[in-house]
Structure formats: structure tokens, C-alpha cells
């Protein structure tokens, strides 16, 4: 094989067939984006409002969901992604909610195809809201549209106020940012003003909410906002 052009003829100087340039201009995420649009159409046709929850591991996604499922006056289902185990699904099923666990193996994010497969096992006709608890990761989920209506990124107080500056793509891609574990602000020496300032710079259009799943502070506002977003959800195809 000719290692100059990879065409199978040797040597390179002795062959002069034209190497054609094939124009592609296609996004690397085109396949996922197409599947995500398909998901979106399916969700809208069923009147389902879909929330994609993302954060680093341990920011409190499952704890927030446990509390939310008990408070939210809307029938909800959950798709939860983790590399391994169904521990989160077991926790969430205790709330009486339909939960599908997706074990992603070595993959560090959920993609639109995985969500489509998982949703296929839920009875979506009985649901108003679908929460997707993404794999704990502040980098990769940014690039993968799942067909959600709302992307919510959690930032927990112990992670520090500078997280948005360190991981801008995910925060930038979020519709809402929820600062969690605010009961730990004092213990962690958390600089709230700096955090809000960083979020304003990285994600100027994101709505910012602050809460503690443990103490319940801010939970009412979070649920009210979810209900409002549900009521104004895009409908039809």
C-alpha cells in the first residue's frame, strides 16, 4: 500500500490517479442530533415535558429528584443513567415513581438513542413529566442533545463557586442552573455572590435557582417553576 496516499498502489511517485476531495460538511453529532429531534417529536406528541438533569457526580441529582417526586403535583417518570449499578433507581423507586435505569458501561454520558430505548419501556401516556438523570459528568453531556425541553445543571455548594469558570460548555448549554446544598454555604465558605457573578458571565441566559434538598429551602420555588415550565411547554409536532 502507498503510505503517502493510502490508495493501495506503490510507490507513490509512480501513480498519478487523482485523489478526489469529497465535501462532507456534517456535524460529528449529526446522528445524535437527528435521534434527539425524533425523541423531541415523540415527547411532544405525548404532551410529555422532559427535563435533563446534569451535574458532576455527587452534586445531589438523585437527592433532588427524591424530594421533587414527593412534592411535584405532576405525574413523573425517571430515566437514570450511571456507568454501573441500579442504586439510584432503587432509591427513586421508593417514591413510587416509574424508573428506568440505564447502565452506560464505560460511556460517560447518555445519548439520544439510549434515552429512546429506555423511554420505550415506560408507559409515557400516564406521565406528564420525564426526568432524565444524566451520568454524573460536567463535560460530555454538554454535547448530547437528548430531545429534552429543559436542561438543568446542578452546582453543589461544596464543589466551589468557580465551577462555572472551569466547565463553561455545560453551564452555557443549560436553561437553568440549580445551586444545591445551600445549607452548607457557611461550612464551605462558599462565596455566593462570586458564584452568581461567574454564572452570569458563563451562562447569561440561564435561570438560577438555589435550594437544599436536605432542609427543603428553595424546594417550593423549584417545584413552582417546574409546574410553570410544564404548563408553557411546547405542544404538538
Amino acid at each position, binding site marked *: 500500500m502507498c503510505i503517502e*496516499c493510502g*490508495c493501495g498502489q506503490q510507490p507513490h511517485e509512480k501513480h498519478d490517479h487523482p485523489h*478526489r476531495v469529497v465535501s462532507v460538511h456534517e456535524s460529528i453529532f449529526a446522528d445524535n442530533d437527528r435521534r434527539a429531534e425524533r425523541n423531541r417529536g415523540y415527547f411532544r406528541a405525548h404532551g410529555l415535558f422532559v427535563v435533563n438533569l446534569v451535574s458532576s457526580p455527587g452534586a445531589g441529582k438523585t437527592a433532588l429528584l427524591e424530594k421533587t417526586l414527593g412534592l411535584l403535583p405532576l405525574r413523573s417518570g425517571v430515566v437514570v443513567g450511571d456507568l454501573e449499578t441500579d442504586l439510584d433507581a432503587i432509591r427513586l423507586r421508593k417514591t413510587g415513581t416509574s424508573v428506568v435505569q440505564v447502565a452506560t458501561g464505560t460511556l460517560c454520558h447518555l445519548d439520544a438513542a439510549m434515552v429512546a430505548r429506555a423511554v420505550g419501556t415506560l408507559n409515557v401516556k400516564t406521565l406528564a413529566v420525564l426526568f432524565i438523570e444524566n451520568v454524573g459528568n460536567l463535560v460530555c453531556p454538554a454535547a448530547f442533545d437528548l430531545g429534552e425541553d429543559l436542561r438543568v445543571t446542578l452546582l453543589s455548594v461544596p464543589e466551589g463557586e468557580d465551577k462555572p469558570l472551569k466547565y*463553561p460548555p455545560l453551564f452555557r448549554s443549560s436553561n437553568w442552573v440549580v445551586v444545591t446544598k445551600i445549607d452548607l454555604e457557611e461550612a464551605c465558605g462558599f462565596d455566593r455572590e462570586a458564584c452568581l457573578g461567574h454564572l452570569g458571565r458563563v451562562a447569561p441566559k440561564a435561570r438560577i435557582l438555589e435550594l437544599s434538598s436536605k432542609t427543603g429551602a428553595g424546594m417550593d420555588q423549584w417545584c413552582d417553576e417546574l409546574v410553570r415550565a410544564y404548563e408553557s411547554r411546547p405542544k404538538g409536532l
Partner: protein
Amino acid sequence: MHEVGIVQSTLAMAERHARNAGGSAISSLLLRVGDMTGVVPEAIEHAFDVLKIGTLAENASLVIERVGGIGWCEGCSLEFSADGWIAICPRCAVPTGDLRSGLELELVSLEVS
């Protein structure tokens, strides 16, 4: 970042286009990567060297074209180049979430034979 997954998608896409064009080998690929995607070009190159083996692009070279970030200010309609991760209008000093460039991640073209 999931550079391995990105390279796998790129190679699959490139092979599909090469076959459609009647090519039997890919000699080069041009990939456009926006500065604000978070994708690390060095990691792409490394993954490419490993993953191309056994594909039509086994002997291909990879060319990465970087695209700088460009923000657009809602307040004063200025289009400006964003330095680093955050786009702040140099005239109004107001951050914007409206990026006109820098989020690209696309396979531009390939050379087949």
C-alpha cells in the same frame, strides 16, 4: 471530553462518504473544531491514530482546523471575537450567550482514492 467517541463517529461518517464516492481508501480528513466546544485537538489526534487502524482511513492524515469563538452582543449588535471560554462584549462589558462561532465540530471534507 469524549474524544474517542467523537473520532469513532468521524471515522464512521468518513467511511460512509468515501464508499458513497466509490473510494477504496481515505488519504486525509479535514475536521473543524470550535475553540468553545471543549474538545481537545491533541486528544482527537491521539484517538485518531489508534482508531483509524483497520478502517479505510488506516493511512490517512488528520488535519484539524481550529475555529475561534465569536460572540454577538444583544445590547449594541457588535460581533466580537471571544478570547477563551467566555464571550464578553468589549464595548458594553456585558457577557453574551449568543455565540456565532466557536461551537463547530464537523467533518469538512476527505480526500479519497
